[in-house]
Every structure is written in structure tokens, then in C-alpha cells.
């Protein structure tokens, strides 16, 4: 219960930090007003005119950002801030994370579907084609991380990294996991849902406060994702001198920087080729990751 404010504090800081980092990565300079720029943009969106299409599926349209944001919170709820300091100390933490990923695909599809417009619909369909196989990858690398911990709880996985981080033990895990993070928070080389070639994809028809809600949910998912990656591969709250929550926040911030840099600097592949690459190249790589983790855990 005491961890719930911590979760929202981390989310708020992460959203603000990621918004700044993204501006910086795409502008490649540090304008003087960048620290407050996300707030100005939020204010502008809140006062912007709201446009709606003809006969949308209004309920699902409103539900999609809410579900997306709630899933980000749920994913962050199983991440421990310190030993025992966690909202939901579930034995099945990484299974819950997998369920969040699956439901995220549903939320993004619904957002694209319910506008009753062509471009969002294409974005939604394209996202499903990439999101489904990308989800498989992340589940494999999370299972590989669970092998030495002998538990599916995120807390146990963090504790199993006292001697060595999983990033070192399982070198393939983190890059594959980051790929999924880009996919489910809809950015960069894996941005098949909200891509600019579809003039915003699933968000093409939303404006004003609704677009703000969707953007916040996307950044919240990115933050939750970075915190999960930091816990599973970078030792989470473990570290000398500083208290646990501070270490988690620092590692989350580092992953956020890496993610936004990747998101702004990598090119996107055509969706069919990406789908084939996910199944034929990256899925065998995740098998290899599993074998490395398995052999290492037995030694």
C-alpha cells in the first residue's frame, strides 16, 4: 500500500524525463525552455479544439487510453523499489507482465479501430502483426531471466543478481527486451501503430485532451517498461551507498535515455519484413538466449 505513491511518483518523473529526452534526441541540441516544454505542450493540448469523426465507437475510443495507462501502472506494480517495498508482491510477476503486453496489443488495436477511419485502422492492424511475435520474444527473455532466480517473482529475480547482473550473464536478453519496449510503447524503429507514414496511425484522428491522454499513456508504458528492464537485467534496486528506490530511478532513467536515443535514430523496416525478421532471426536468438541462461544456471 505504501508503495502506490512511489509508483505514481516514478511514473510522473519518468514521463516528464522521457518527454524531455525525446525532444533532445530529435532536436540534437538543448534549447533553454526544454525543461518546461512538456508542460507547455500539455497545456496547449488541453485547450485545443477537439475533433471527432463520424460515428466512432465512442466507448472503446475512450477506453483505449485508459486501459493503456492502467496497464502501465499494473506492470510497474510488480517492480520492487526495495526489498519488500512493492505494490503487489505476486509470485507470478513476469506472467503478469506478459499479460500486460498482450492486453496492450488489444488496447492499441481498439484505439485504431474505434475512430472509424482508414489510417488509424491500418495502424492498428499493422501493430498487431508486429506486436504478437514481439511479445513472444519478451516472454522468452523474461523466462531466461527467471531461470537462475528459480521463481517468477520480480523480487526474486532482482535478488538473484546480487553477484552479477543479468545483463552480463545473459547478454542477448536486454537488447531483445528493449526491442519489445519500443514496440509496445509505439516508438522508433518498432513504431508500427502510431507511425508518421500513417500521419499518426492510431492517433491520427484524435486531438486535444484525448491526444494528451494517449501520449501520457504511451510515455507511462515506456517508463514502466524501463523500470521492468532495469529490475530484470540491471539489478533493480541493488547498489552501494544509495537507497534502493534511488538506484531503481537512476537505472530507469538510463534505460529511458537508451530507449529514446534508439527510438529517434534507428530506421524502420517495412512491416512484412519486420514480421519475418521477428520470427526467423530474433526468435531463434531468443532461443539462444534461453540456452545460454540455462547452461549458465546449471554451472
Amino acid at each position, binding site marked *: 500500500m505504501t508503495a502506490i505513491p512511489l509508483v505514481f511518483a516514478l511514473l510522473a518523473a519518468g514521463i516528464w524525463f522521457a518527454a524531455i529526452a525525446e525532444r533532445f534526441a530529435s532536436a540534437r541540441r538543448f534549447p533553454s525552455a526544454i525543461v518546461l516544454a512538456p508542460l507547455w505542450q500539455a497545456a496547449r493540448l488541453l485547450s485545443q479544439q477537439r475533433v471527432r469523426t463520424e460515428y466512432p465507437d465512442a466507448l472503446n475510443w475512450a477506453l483505449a487510453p485508459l486501459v493503456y495507462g492502467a496497464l502501465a501502472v499494473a506492470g510497474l506494480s510488480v517492480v520492487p523499489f526495495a526489498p519488500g517495498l512493492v505494490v503487489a508482491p505476486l509470485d507470478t510477476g513476469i506472467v*503478469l507482465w506478459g*499479460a500486460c503486453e498482450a*492486453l496492450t*496489443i488489444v488496447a492499441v488495436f481498439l484505439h485504431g479501430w474505434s475512430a472509424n477511419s482508414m489510417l488509424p485502422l491500418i495502424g492498428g492492424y499493422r501493430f498487431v502483426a508486429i506486436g504478437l511475435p514481439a511479445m513472444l520474444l519478451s516472454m522468452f527473455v523474461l523466462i531466461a531471466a527467471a531461470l537462475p532466480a528459480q521463481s517468477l517473482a520480480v523480487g526474486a529475480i532482482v535478488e538473484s543478481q546480487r553477484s552479477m547482473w543479468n545483463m552480463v550473464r545473459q547478454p542477448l536478453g536486454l537488447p531483445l527486451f528493449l526491442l519489445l519496449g519500443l514496440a509496445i510503447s509505439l516508438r522508433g524503429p518498432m513504431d508500427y501503430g502510431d507511425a508518421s507514414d500513417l500521419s499518426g496511425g492510431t492517433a491520427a484522428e484524435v486531438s486535444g485532451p484525448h491526444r494528451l491522454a494517449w501520449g501520457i499513456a504511451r510515455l507511462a508504458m515506456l517508463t514502466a517498461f524501463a523500470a521492468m528492464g532495469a529490475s530484470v537485467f540491471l539489478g533493480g534496486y541493488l547498489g552501494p551507498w544509495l537507497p534502493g528506490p534511488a538506484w531503481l530511478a537512476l537505472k530507469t532513467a538510463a534505460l529511458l535515455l537508451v530507449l529514446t536515443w534508439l527510438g529517434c535514430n534507428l530506421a524502420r523496416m517495412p512491416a512484412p519484413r519486420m514480421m519475418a525478421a521477428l520470427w526467423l532471426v530474433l526468435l531463434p536468438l531468443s532461443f539462444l538466449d534461453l540456452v545460454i541462461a540455462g547452461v549458465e544456471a546449471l554451472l
Partner: protein
Amino acid sequence: MTAADLAFYVLSAIAVVSGWRVFRTDSMVRASFLLMLSFIAVAAIMLMLAAPYIGMATVFMMAVEMMVMALFMVMFMMNPAGLNPMNMVHQNRLSIGAGATAFVGLTVAVLFTDLPHEKVARQAPVIRDLGHELLGPSMLIFESAGVTLLAAMVASVVLSARSGRFGPSDEGSRPPGLEPGGEPAGRIPESEQEDE
């Protein structure tokens, strides 16, 4: 009534009502996600029934299955969004009767059977037990599930993929000629015999 009981009643109401609404809504996408809601409510009940792993895994399995279901709904229904009301039912009375009979029959059977009452221990390591069971006594089930899934994968590919290695599958296969560029060897397909 405890909080757990209240949660159970709410969740069962969600499961049954959304399961029923699946067949009453006009929008096909809504229908598939209502079914997903029903599954998630059942999964939550299973989590309360001390099945932490099966409950959580149901959520992700069913989320992706219903996602795919929605895609196929849009592909195969002439009115996927339900903009025009439609009614695609047959033998409605019979079906209502059959459904009600099944419910009443099963309920009576449940009420009049002497059910065993041995609860699972509160702190039982159920996930670990399941793992040992899968790798030990139920190994055969586990590996034959693999073969079954392989069969399902092959079957679905054979049936659904249009582009095979040898060109579009629905055009039928034509064996190569006896000499290069010549008439196909073997029996002439029936559809072409009729034309001649």
C-alpha cells in the same frame, strides 16, 4: 459476507453477463472483446481460488486469442462494426431451450451431488508442484502436447496459407510435363475435363 465473497459475486456477474452479451451485440469487434472480458473475469476468480499461475496465464492466452478472433471477425462478417442492426441466428428457440436445459441440468447435478470438500493449502507451492509434475509424472502429456501443437500448426498452415512454395494453393497443383514445356503428366483434373 466477506470482501472475497463480494468480489466473487461481482466477477461472476461480469463473466456471465458479458458472455451473454457476446451474442447480443451488433459490433463484431465488441463481441470478441466482450468474450475476452468474460475470460478475464473467470481468470480473476481463478486467482482468488489459489491458482496464481493458471489464472494469470489465462489472461495473456485469452487476450491474444481474442485479438486474433477480432481480426477474423472483421474478415468474415459482412457488417463488422454493426452499423446496421442484424440478426444472424437460426433455431433460436431450440438453442435457448438447449442452453437453459444444460444450465438447469448441471445446476441440479451440482446441488444434489455430494461434493468433496478438501481445500488446497493456503501456502502450497502450486507453481513449483506444477513444474515438477510436468517434468516428472506428466512428461508424456507435456511432450505429446508439443506434437499436438505441431500438428495444429501444420494443419492451420496447410489450410489457410494461400501462397505455397509452388504458387497459389487454390489453383490446384499441376505436375511438370513429360518433356520441357509439354502437357502435364498424370491424370487431368476433373474441373478441366468438364471444359473439354
